[in-house]
């Protein structure tokens, strides 16, 4: 919000101040260099929140909270949630929402587990050799789930909330039928190995998470598609008038979301070689909390991958901190809701303070629609 103070001069003077213009230019370039890409309003706030959360629980119960096992647990539990949250962020960037992500992740995990068990029943060795392909099948299953969401939203034209509410139920229902409602055991040994592995004491899962986050950050900030996703979310009509292919962009976004959810399903299995239709049902709320905390605007157009990563870590810290000071998972659920609503209220207050009320609707079919308020000159 660096634009609070209005400019004092109009066009004519701009020509007569080459020095000032040069100054502006320099300011612009230095600011851009000084500001790492993808770091937006969410990130700065989350750094503070993360440090506060760590400090709080360190003071409350340093022995348990700072123990290597606890830190290890945070690093192992965060990736699966974090990746789904990044998928949620991606979809919210277009102004939509995807409630089916957790169901897709479970669906992917179940696909892998079932395939593995089926192959392993005939030849255990083969199952291990085909491990990679089986995992890939799971990720593809996730992508297909996402693509179907994309189809419903972009081609059929169903509101994202309703479309994904329905597909959540469909994917979840298919998973229940498939598993018969019970928990499946078995996953490629390769995944177990990944789940246990660590590089320099950092769990491999966490490295995968960071790597994924970097990839998505590059996608969002450095690619043409990423820009289109942002612009589509910022103003659909203007995006259309800028020749941005809406259908293709939405299709790719939801498919990408499904892909990430599929990957999260793989991580479910890597942590624990079991799969069930009801795993992580509390994640649906959690990932929305994380995405919004991380600076994602639910109306679309703005998000920060780095902010989402930090928000994931913060909530994992709060979660394990709650365990460390012996609070229940229900109290954690309360905390999530309270944090979500508090952050949104703070955002809403600060944005009404800095922004003028904007016009809500354009006149229907009117030829001229210039809002005086937005055109007030200095």
């Amino acid at each position: 919000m660096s634009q609070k103070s209005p400019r004092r001069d109009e066009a004519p003077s701009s020509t007569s101040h080459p020095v000032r213009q040069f100054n502006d230019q320099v300011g612009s370039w230095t600011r851009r260099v000084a500001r790492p890409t993808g770091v937006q309003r969410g990130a700065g706030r989350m750094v503070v929140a993360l440090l506060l959360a760590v400090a709080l629980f360190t003071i409350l119960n340093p022995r348990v909270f700072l123990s290597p096992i606890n830190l290890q647990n945070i690093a192992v539990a965060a990736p699966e949630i974090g990746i789904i949250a990044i998928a949620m962020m991606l979809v919210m960037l277009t102004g939509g929402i995807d409630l089916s992500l957790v169901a897709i992740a479970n669906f992917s995990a179940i696909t892998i587990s079932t395939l593995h068990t089926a192959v392993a029943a005939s030849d255990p060795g083969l199952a291990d050799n085909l491990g990679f392909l089986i995992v890939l099948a799971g990720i593809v299953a996730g992508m297909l789930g996402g693509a179907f969401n994309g189809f419903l939203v972009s081609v059929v034209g169903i509101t994202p909330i309703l479309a994904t509410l329905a597909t959540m139920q469909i994917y979840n229902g298919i998973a229940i039928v498939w598993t018969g409602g019970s928990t499946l055991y078995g996953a490629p040994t390769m995944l177990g190995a990944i789940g246990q592995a660590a590089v320099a004491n950092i769990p491999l899962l966490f490295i995968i998470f960071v790597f994924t986050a970097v990839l998505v950050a590059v996608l969002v900030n450095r690619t043409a598609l990423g820009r289109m996703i942002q612009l589509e979310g910022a103003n659909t009509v203007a995006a259309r008038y800028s020749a941005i292919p809406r259908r293709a962009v939405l299709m790719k976004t939801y498919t990408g979301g499904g892909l990430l959810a599929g990957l999260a399903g793989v991580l479910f299995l890597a942590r624990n070689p079991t799969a069930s239709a009801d795993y992580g049902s509390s994640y649906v709320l959690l990932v929305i909390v994380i995405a919004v905390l991380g600076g994602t605007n639910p109306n679309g157009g703005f998000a920060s991958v780095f902010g989402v990563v930090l928000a994931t870590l913060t909530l994992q810290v709060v979660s394990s901190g709650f365990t460390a000071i012996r609070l229940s998972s229900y109290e954690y659920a309360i905390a999530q809701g309270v944090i979500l609503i508090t952050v949104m209220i703070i955002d809403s207050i600060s944005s009404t303070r800095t922004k003028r009320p904007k016009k809500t609707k354009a006149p229907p079919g009117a030829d001229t629609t210039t809002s005086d308020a937005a055109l007030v000159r200095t």
Partner: protein
Amino acid sequence: MDVLRRLRGTNNEGVLALVLLGLIVAMSIANPTFFTLNTGFSILRSSIVPVIFALGVLIVVITGGIDVSFAAIAIFAGYSTVSFCLTAGFDPGLPGIFAIAIGVGVALGFINGIVIARFNLPTLIVTLGTQGVFFGAMYTYVGATYFADLPGSMAALATSNLFDVTTDTGRAYLHVLVVPVILLCLAVGWVLKRTMFGRSLYAIGGDIEAARRAGFQVQRTQVSVYMLVGALAAIAGVIHIVLSRSANPRDLVGGELDIIAAVILGGAAIFGGRGSVLGTVLGVLLVQVIKNSLLLVGVPSAWLRTAVGVLLVVGVGIQAIAAHRDARRTRVIQDLDTDLKKEQELV
């Protein structure tokens, strides 16, 4: 043409009724055990709680919002009332129990309303948040034990039937609670159609800025709406506990989609401004009949969830495609209008 239009209803209630009728006929032919008083009464019984929830969701959806915390409010209000009565060891009678529960529900709804209306936040995300808060708060501060015995007045109500008919397929019971549900439907329908409060809900859902300019108290109305939803949810919560003859804190939450699906199928527009009680009731009945028929046809109950999802996709998808086409058609009509005007002008 006019008669047809009226039969069809403003929100396609007629179409929905036809679908429902068709389904019932088809099911009766496919499986004679379907078309019995027994099945009918049991579908009605299983619709009692969903209909009350759906009325609440309908009210919110008309104003252009959505509420997913109603199930959490219902079980919070119902369970904490029962828990309070049992631990305190006194039975305030049915009016007392309902009054306590409604008070709790209204208070929780007030929290939703004040957050949404005062700070103008997205309703889905706020109610997702409060859903977690309400549910967590119930477990943490009220308790998580399962009560198999209810206070006397509730237990008595649980076994009261309105009709008790003996047919050749066995005895059919129609539960007495069907009556208050019908009364509630009539009351909500009356409020929506015949009070300024009801009309203001449609106005807000149609164009919130226009509603503000017309002098409607938008914020106050929004808060009242969520309080009303809280009250309806609380009633549904108590009735659910009565019908299941036990108070289980794990009940209800998770079934929100079925209700929202029914309301949307009943013709309410997710962006607000449209929806009727009749459509909503038909929507709920449709979902219940489909659930029931799937079981009768022999589809495993595991498919129910998928079925509701598919139903929602089909229902909303048809609406979405129809909306595309309508948009195109209105343009053509306007074109014709301007053409006519041009011709008049030339003459």
